């Protein structure tokens, strides 16, 4: 099951050694109901390499102290490690300055930060935000939640039968009230990779900033915020082999400077009196309270791990698995794939005419296979495709063609039971 992919990155030739990679992830040795774990729920969260787990242990064993302002040794050590992690994120997405990298709890908090700081304070009643019909609830609800303060109108770019955005009328949607375009880069439910470059270029033609929800893109594609020219970008650490509870909001300085703080407290201030407060500089203005220091540092370790393997090599491997698994699944009678975009990431959502996704999920669990079943936090999209739920298999760098075979074989077994 060895697969060697050679990629040329500068002068380094990197070898994609799947067996070695699988050994990096201790959980992959687990048996589930007596069967080897076949983990295909990577769009929900990825498994963790030992090197990332070790960095958490190392932090708490030898570095733990609160960061910033501490004059003692450990505080200096942990501050340095925390700020180094920020630099790693900056380099990973090629931001122009570390001031543009804000640590949050995850994609959801990052989008809520923009909604609460940017939209709530700087938008006016009746202003419009354009989203798409395939947004995760985390890019729908935050805009609705600020309604008591600012009545924002959400407009949605529609989705076609293949799961691709219908961009024909996008430009017409933009008017003088449009204040932000906030779109998902890669759909968590369909796997569609949206043409964000085109969306950004159209939006910018009308001076409208763009937020990208990159929760499902960051682990599969090379994300270069300067090349993309996006104005905000949000992602979560745990979907790129890092820990839960840590995420990133990237924002262009020119926007972050004008935005008021999201949360108030320690670390985000420069001077506090009972009469008023002056705020700290970027990025600290948006990082109130003690940060999630350990997980930020471990996110840095996870990004190093991905960089060492190479995101291009990972993408090539995942695309091969996606093509292979798609063909295998299409051989199964009665199985229909929801989401057939030309440009797709390694996510396969599928339904059976007569078998509910929940039953599929339970059966697969007993074969050791972990998939996700449900609406995947995209209920409007499920309504669009007239299904209450789907089964979703999503692949990561450690998955193999053999695992796709196991999935297909198990799905055929389910058919026997339900027929």
């Amino acid at each position, binding site marked *: 099951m060895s697969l060697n992919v050679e990629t040329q990155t500068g002068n380094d030739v990197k070898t994609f050694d799947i067996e070695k990679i699988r050994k990096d992830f201790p959980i992959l040795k687990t048996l589930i*109901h007596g069967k080897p774990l076949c983990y295909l729920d990577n769009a929900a969260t990825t498994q963790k390499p030992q090197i990332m787990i070790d960095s958490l242990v190392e932090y708490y064993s030898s570095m733990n102290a609160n960061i910033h302002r501490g004059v003692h040794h450990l505080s200096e050590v942990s501050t340095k490690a925390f700020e180094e992690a920020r630099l790693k994120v900056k380099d990973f997405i090629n931001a122009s300055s570390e001031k543009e990298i804000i640590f949050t709890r995850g994609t959801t908090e990052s989008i809520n930060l923009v909604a609460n700081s940017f939209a709530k304070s700087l938008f006016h009643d009746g202003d419009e935000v354009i989203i798409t019909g395939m947004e995760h609830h985390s890019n729908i609800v935050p805009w609705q939640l600020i309604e008591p303060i600012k009545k924002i109108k959400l407009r949605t770019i529609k989705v076609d039968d293949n799961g691709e955005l219908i961009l024909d009328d996008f430009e017409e949607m933009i008017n003088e009230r449009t204040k932000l375009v906030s779109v998902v880069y890669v759909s968590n439910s369909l796997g569609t990779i949206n043409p964000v470059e085109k969306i950004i270029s159209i939006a910018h033609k009308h001076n409208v900033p763009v937020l990208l929800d990159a929760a499902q893109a960051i682990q599969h594609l090379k994300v270069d915020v300067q090349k993309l020219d996006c104005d905000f970008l949000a992602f979560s650490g745990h979907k790129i082999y890092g820990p839960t509870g840590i995420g990133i909001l990237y924002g262009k300085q020119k926007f972050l400077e004008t935005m008021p703080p999201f949360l108030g407290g320690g670390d985000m201030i420069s001077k506090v009196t009972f009469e008023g407060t002056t705020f700290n500089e970027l990025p600290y203005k948006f990082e109130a309270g003690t940060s999630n220091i350990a997980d930020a540092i471990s996110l840095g370790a996870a990004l190093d791990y991905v960089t060492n393997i190479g995101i291009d090599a990972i993408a090539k491997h995942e695309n091969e698995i996606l093509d292979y698994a798609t063909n295998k699944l299409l051989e199964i009678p009665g199985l229909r794939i929801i989401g057939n975009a030309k440009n797709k990431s390694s996510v396969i959502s599928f339904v059976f005419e*007569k*078998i*509910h*996704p*929940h*039953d599929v999920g*339970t*059966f697969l669990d*007993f074969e050791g296979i972990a998939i996700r*079943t*449900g*609406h995947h936090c995209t*209920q409007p999209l*499920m309504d669009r495709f007239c299904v*209450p*739920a789907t089964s979703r298999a999503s692949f990561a760098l450690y998955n193999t063609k053999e695992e796709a075979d196991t999935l297909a074989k198990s799905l055929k077994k389910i058919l026997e*039971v*339900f027929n």
Partner: protein
Amino acid sequence: MDAELRELYQQVILDHNKSPRNFKKLENANHTAEGYNPLCGDKINIYMDVENGIVKDVSFLGSGCAISKASASLMSTIIKGKTKEKAEKIFEKFHDLVTGNLTDEEEIEELGKLAVFSGVKDFPVRVKCASLAWHTMISALNKEEKIVSTEEK
């Protein structure tokens, strides 16, 4: 098939899933309710004809997994002809069964065909699938004109 899995998906359940009984809209219903499980998107409508405190007829429509569909189907066959009080009593016992709180062999036996749902107790996330139709039926009986959600308990 694994023994635990076979215990959950007993033949009776697979059969009721494939050919649900009373799967229609009751035209002369005087008690109705809608149930919803936001976790999995399951929806169910219960239609009942209740006269003098007795369930004359009951039917349902909706979409859901095998457990929820079979549960609704079996429920409809069992409470037909029962008094309101009796239907509520059976639900209590059924709920105890699927949550693992009914261990007395005799009491389980009294539940008759409903005993096929005993495997659900080993699958905590599926308890809501098994009980959605019942919650909705109780709501219809009490004529609460609202959508029942499994997330409001």
